[in-house]
């Protein structure tokens, strides 16, 4: 076991993938000499060369579109979109090409492309640097979408994503890049928990609290705070946003009877809505109250002095837990 930061853990995972498979090729803006704006690819170009770790011109559609061509040629491209808000120029290539080519060609062409997206807020950035665009991609068939929440997963899941024959969007919670954790680099990604499985982080009996990426840490903090108030929360790290591991969620909700889901993205049409609806369909008679969503607002990402109002924090999550449990909360006395 080694102590390393989240960013370093991804770096180490990328390094392993580059070592293990000569067809793995990294591409993106500033990922070579600079090592990426978050230094996630630090040192990789120096060790693997400019043909394996490619500094590209600034053109997101081209970064994804050329990765498609490389995949046609048998490569496994790992591309970095520098910031969440920069993914939109590449949207067509992702949803119309990367996602659909396997289907379009009846399985003849594989698109084992990993798209790394530093996402989410909380770092005081300007516009376009703090967004949570994951729902656009979970809505698109053919894509797998994951988000990791701790250094060990970051290290393992990046390798699983790269070796997956389907395209994977790998959302990295950028405000956790500098968090440290234990990483067992010898853990074999082939036998580790698969990337499409959710993980129960704390056992609880009163509420199932589902989070992913940057909010997993907040959810864990909320569970500790709730325990002081005598509420037992089962925190689930969703890990895979598409497909969602409903089996794990169902088992938990059948036990607790209450569901709270939290994410930074806006509420309408967000992943929380999908999880709430699916769990309601699957275990309606086990739910003792309507599922509760604690999310960002349906607003453009606000300027940084206000972002902590938009982002679900520990107290907002606890308030959501109170709503789910029918305890006194911010909406008490309101109908509906």
């Amino acid at each position: 076991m080694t102590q390393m930061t989240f960013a370093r853990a991804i770096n180490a995972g990328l390094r392993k993938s580059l070592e293990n498979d000569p067809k793995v090729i990294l591409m993106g803006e500033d990922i070579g000499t600079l090592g990426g704006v978050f230094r996630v690819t630090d040192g990789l170009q120096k060790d693997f060369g400019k043909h394996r770790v490619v500094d590209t011109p600034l053109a997101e559609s081209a970064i994804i579109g050329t990765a498609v061509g490389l995949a046609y040629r048998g490569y496994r491209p790992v591309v970095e979109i520098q910031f969440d808000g920069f993914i939109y120029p590449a949207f067509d290539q992702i949803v119309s090409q990367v996602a659909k080519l396997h289907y379009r060609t009846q399985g003849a062409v594989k698109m084992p492309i990993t798209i790394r997206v530093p996402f989410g807020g909380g770092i005081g950035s300007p516009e376009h640097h703090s967004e949570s665009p994951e729902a656009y991609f979970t809505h698109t068939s053919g894509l797998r979408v994951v988000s990791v929440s701790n250094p060990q997963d970051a290290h393992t899941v990046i390798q699983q994503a790269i070796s997956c024959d389907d395209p994977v969007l790998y959302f990295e919670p950028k405000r956790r890049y500098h968090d440290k954790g234990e990483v067992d680099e010898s853990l074999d990604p082939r036998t580790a928990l698969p990337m499409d499985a959710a993980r129960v982080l704390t056992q609880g009996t009163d509420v199932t609290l589902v989070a992913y990426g940057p909010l997993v840490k907040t959810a864990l903090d909320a569970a500790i705070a709730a325990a002081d108030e005598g509420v037992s929360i089962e925190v689930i790290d969703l890990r895979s946003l598409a497909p969602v591991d409903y089996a794990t969620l169902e088992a938990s909700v059948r036990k607790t009877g209450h569901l709270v889901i939290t994410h930074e993205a806006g509420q309408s049409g967000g992943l929380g809505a999908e999880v709430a609806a699916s769990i309601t369909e699957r275990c309606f008679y086990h739910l003792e109250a309507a599922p509760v969503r604690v999310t960002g607002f349906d607003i453009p990402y606000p300027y940084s002095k206000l972002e902590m109002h938009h982002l679900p924090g520990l107290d907002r999550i606890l308030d959501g837990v109170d709503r789910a449990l029918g305890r006194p909360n911010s909406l008490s006395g309101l109908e509906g």
Partner: protein
Amino acid sequence: MSTDEAGQGGPSSRGQGNSAEHHGGSGRSLIQLITPAGERISHPEFDPWLQDITDEHLCSLYEDMTVIRRIDVEATALQRQGELALWPPLLGQEASQIGSGRALRQDDFVFSSYRENGVAYCRGVDLTSIIRVWRGNASSGWNPYTINMATPQIIIGAQTLHATGYAMGIQNDGADAVAVTYFGDGATSEGDLNEAMVFAASFQAPVVFFCQNNHWAISEPVRLQSHVHLADRATGFGIPSLRVDGNDVLAVMAATRVALDRARRGGGPTFIEAVTYRMGPHTTADDPTRYRDANELEDWAAKDPIWRVKSLLERKGLLTEELQRHVDDKADSVAREMRLACTSLPEPEPLDVFKHVYSSPNTWLDRQQDHYSRYLASFGDPAGAPSEEGAR
């Protein structure tokens, strides 16, 4: 010798101004080796690229062009008869497609739009494969690796990036194959082509950008899209370009060979603008009489690419009755084969809708497939189940 385009009787002016053919262009002449009247003219720069083109070879180019025109006419008829949902005709672009398609090596890889059925024919496509997509029986006709040609792209210009990426892969592999991307004049307005040219130039990727300027992006004329010759745009990216008479099969072939050779020798990308004309509609769904002048079509009909090579064969005394019969028979049999392939395609299975979304199982989708298969089974006769009218 080059022929000035004005002397070619360019598209007639309709008083809209800003014609790329008359304003702002570099005045670059078109590369031409056969005049519209069918006269072979010498060209010291490009003739050396055609030294292996024997009389027999020339006859086979005539045959190819005739056959793909026949495929096109037959498919259009199939659409009109309700056998195909849609068809994108290539009528008028036979020289561009055969001239370039026949210049490629089998290990080159093509990324095309939906209109390059002539190129697919050169790659050796099975005709059933071409027709399957337009009948609605599949999303793509062929396995790209069997003919080294990607599934035709519908999103305008998207394929130019795929070709560039593929070319970067060729470069990494140390191979001397070339990625060739086909697109129309409309695609030159799209961001993707422009990004593709940036990447191709940056990495000196072995890719050939083959633009068939057929003058119309559905109803938008090329003069609305560009105030310079399309070939001149490449210059700004640092990509050498050639502007060729797209109705001249030999000129197209020579230009393509120049570009391929440059790419194979590590010289990087080349942009070819093949100036041609789409004589039919964009697809069978539109009506060009609404947006273009009949005189324009007439002008271009006089430059018909097949008529041109046929005249050349006549001048050379090669157009024997035997040859014409052979060509006609071939076109007839190919058309028959395609019609039969079309009408005898088996109906796809209902649960095929779920196949190949992912390469490994996906729990969401497996559940939907399971539910739908139970739903179908509830009818007893799954084949009769889903319809807009209902069966209950």
